[in-house]
């Protein structure tokens, strides 16, 4: 496009959360009509960067950021997303921000409806204006035409295929007269291959109108296809910023995951001997919102630590949740050759499996109850432990002393910092809460332990402690562990094998010693695409 200066420039932006650096001196520029591909692993800082750009209150609440963000050379500091919208930055979210009971038109012009003033305006204000539906429809149609896609302006969102919902969101952003920059966060994640193609074409159309686009996607192929430039974020650093021309998917993948610290990683792959096959999973599907598992088969041997990695939203979290019966699932799961019914947490627990959920506060803990409850509860309910008979055996009531002893044991063993076993779980820090979750799982003495995102949201010291604990239980007690984590490094540190999940399937299983680009490639959606192409061919 023209030779004018950049409309958006991000200059030396840094941000830390409680001493944790998430963005470090990030710089890039964006010109009108340019499509910028922004890629990076989970936790690389993409989300934080976008939050800063949009003036999300959470940024100011956690101490603001360093550096400058300039629009047309003028520094801006938004205090709310509405300011960002007013300045012409539009965002299309990963989860739809649409009203299902409204039509396409109504959603596209939501809160910016065309109006004709009515006589009551002078009494009660502008909101008494009457909607000008024909004009609304016209504007919606114009936006749809700009996208170059087919959308029925009168269809209800709830009756639309997902792809159309995505288009509606984009159309909404571009109807803002001022929109000059459009941010799309994983817009193709929920789309089918053909829908994604249409979307990419639409993006090119928009770019031709002079709107700049920041395109965030884990499907590197799409980034290469559509973007003019690519910025790779890793550990808060913008490590690459270059035109896409001549860059291959493989290059980007290796920039994305390649770490300077990668060398010390490999501790797991020491060629250990394992026992018999303990868990066998075949054709598993799990209907977990946002983490759909489509078709997964794997087996775990006794004493092994199996890791599941992959990007967020690809289904790795769905695997343990489905096997433990927390979400509707199908397929077959066998423990020691015996089938375990799905959709029943009790059956899974009774079979000898335990689960440390990634949703610590939602599923993992009784926040309002004491620590001893949290730790002993599952063992009490599933195995009848920590109960004592009273009134000559007529009733069995809680054995408070036993629970206390158990809790104190784990408080010692896992170094949980708390005032007493009677402290409420919500009063502990994240790391200690995670240890409580682990203690709860250990208390049922499982043969197989599922651990999901064990280090999410806890500080570095606690991370190490948690990983060491898992490692120790595996080595000392022979507990078989299936660990799901977004952090490739920690998987590589303790797992014997690592499976990468992509689009609800296992894209491949690698030893922890494998080259980093190998992992990156499996995550980039290429494997799934290749598989599909192979099938279609």
């Amino acid at each position, binding site marked *: 496009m023209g030779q004018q200066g950049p409309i958006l420039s991000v200059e030396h932006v840094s941000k830390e959360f409680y001493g944790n650096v998430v963005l470090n001196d990030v710089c890039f520029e964006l010109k009108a009509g340019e499509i910028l591909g922004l890629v990076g692993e989970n936790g690389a800082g993409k989300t934080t960067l976008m939050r800063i750009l949009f003036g999300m209150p959470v940024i100011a609440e956690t101490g603001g950021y360093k550096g400058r963000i300039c629009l047309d050379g003028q520094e801006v500091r938004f205090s709310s997303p509405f300011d960002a919208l007013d300045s012409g930055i539009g965002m299309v979210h990963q989860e739809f921000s*649409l*009203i299902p009971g409204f039509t396409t038109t109504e959603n596209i012009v939501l*809160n910016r409806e065309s109006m004709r003033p009515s006589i009551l305006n002078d009494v009660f204000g502008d909101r008494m204006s009457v909607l000008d539906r024909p004009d609304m429809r016209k504007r919606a149609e114009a936006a749809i035409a700009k996208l170059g896609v087919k959308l029925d302006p009168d269809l209800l969102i709830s009756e639309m*295929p997902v792809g159309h919902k995505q288009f509606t969101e984009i159309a909404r952003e571009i109807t803002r007269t001022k929109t000059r920059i459009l941010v799309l966060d994983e817009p193709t994640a929920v789309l089918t291959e053909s829908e994604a193609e249409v979307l990419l074409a639409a993006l090119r159309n928009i770019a031709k109108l002079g709107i700049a686009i920041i395109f965030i996607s884990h499907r590197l192929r799409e980034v290469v296809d559509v973007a003019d430039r690519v910025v790779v974020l890793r550990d808060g650093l913008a490590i690459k910023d270059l035109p896409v021309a001549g860059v291959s998917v493989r290059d980007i993948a290796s920039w994305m995951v390649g770490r300077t610290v990668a060398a010390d990683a490999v501790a797991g792959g020491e060629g250990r001997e394992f026992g018999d096959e303990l868990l066998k999973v075949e054709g598993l599907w799990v209907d977990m919102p946002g983490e759909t598992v489509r078709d997964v088969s794997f087996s775990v041997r006794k004493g092994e630590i199996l890791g599941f990695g992959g990007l967020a939203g690809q289904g790795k979290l769905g695997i343990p949740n489905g096997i433990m019966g927390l979400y*509707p699932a199908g397929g077959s799961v066998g423990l020691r050759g015996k089938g375990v019914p799905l959709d029943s947490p009790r059956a899974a627990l009774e079979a000898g499996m335990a689960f440390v959920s990634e949703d610590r506060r939602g599923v993992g803990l009784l926040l309002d109850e004491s620590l001893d409850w949290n730790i002993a509860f599952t063992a009490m309910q599933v195995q009848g432990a920590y109960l004592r008979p009273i009134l000559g055996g007529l009733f069995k009531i809680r054995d408070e002393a036993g629970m206390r002893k158990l809790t104190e044991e784990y408080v010692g063993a896992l170094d949980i910092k708390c005032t007493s076993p009677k402290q409420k779980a919500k009063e502990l820090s994240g790391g200690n809460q995670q240890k409580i979750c682990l203690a709860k799982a250990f208390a049922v003495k499982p043969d197989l332990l599922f651990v999901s995102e064990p280090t999410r949201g806890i500080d570095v010291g606690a991370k190490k402690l948690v990983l060491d604990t898992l490692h120790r239980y595996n080595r000392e007690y022979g507990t078989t562990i299936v660990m799901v984590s977004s952090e490739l490094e920690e998987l590589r540190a303790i797992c014997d094998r690592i499976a990468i999940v992509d689009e*609800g*399937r296992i894209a491949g299983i690698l030893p922890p010693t494998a080259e980093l680009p190998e992992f990156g490639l499996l995550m980039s959606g290429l494997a799934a695409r290749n598989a599909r192409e192979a099938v279609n061919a």
Partner: protein
Amino acid sequence: MSGKKSLGRFLTENAVVILFLLITIAAIPSSGLSIQYILQEMITRLGRNTFLVLALILPIYAGMGLNFGMTLGAMSGQLGLILAINFNVGGVEGLAFAALLGTPVSVLMGYICGSVLNKAKGREMVTGYMLAFFINGIYQLVILYMMGAIFPIRSPAILLSRGYGIRNTLNLEGVRQSLDNLLMLRLGGYALPLATFIVIAVLCAFVIWFKKTKLGQDMRAVGHDMTVAESAGVPVDRTRIIAIIISTVLACYGQIIFLQNMGNMATYNAHDQTSFFAVAAILVGGASVKKASIPNVFIGVILLHVLFVVTPRAGQNLFGSAMIGEYFRQFIGYGVIALSLVLYAWRARKDALRAREGLRRASIAAAPEGAAK
């Protein structure tokens, strides 16, 4: 196949209306009342109650459920009427006078109610119900202890003999049926209170028009999805408060219309069952916690009140006790509210389940078929 399915859907969606229709039809013959009598009663009661029931529509539209807090509006209306009686202002002018005085009070009440309900998102209905009880206490404090003691009352006839507090029953002689009689149309033996119907028609037109305004659209958006509306910049809390204020003001007028038809007023009890009857009516008419339309209102008022007219007689004739009919109609009223709430919650859950099922099928279908091999 699909015809059968849609019939089933129709039946479940209109279960309450159909059930009610059946009960009513069954009860009419045993009451022994003439169709003419029932028709006249129906016309009278349509005029008397419809306005109150219409007051419920906007909060439902804004996703706040059934506005049990409308009782606050009814109390404001009664306050207006007490003042009109106090100043001996009669006729249609008296009604207008009462409505005008009731308006600011009901706006204030609506604001209070809306603010309280905003603090109790997700349990608006039970909170609204309890709030009505609470304000009832304050209403009594004002009417029973302050009027005549702190606020001067001109007309000693409406005071209790102890010198303060309003009498338990007020005679609305001056305004009795003045709206109904303003334009009474007599048609083949039926008396049609045309003026009242015109007022109701104007309100219906207002509701229809209101839904086309920006504010109406915002209310709809808030009702569908508060978070999305909020993120699109719609002032959610404010919109909800406005919905409740409008409802409360309408309830104030509705209560005045109701009471002018009744002709006297139980000062301390007249509002007790206002929300109960209105809510029962709109639910009988096929509305739900999330959806209500003007036809629901009319169908509901007609069905509920025909039943109310016939059950005492039917009880008398079938069981030899009028009390049975009396209890039966209250049972029906409460039962219908419980039933439609349950049906609605149950249906919503099933719909969510169906939606998820669809999602799953779509997401699994989205996978290449061959990959499973």
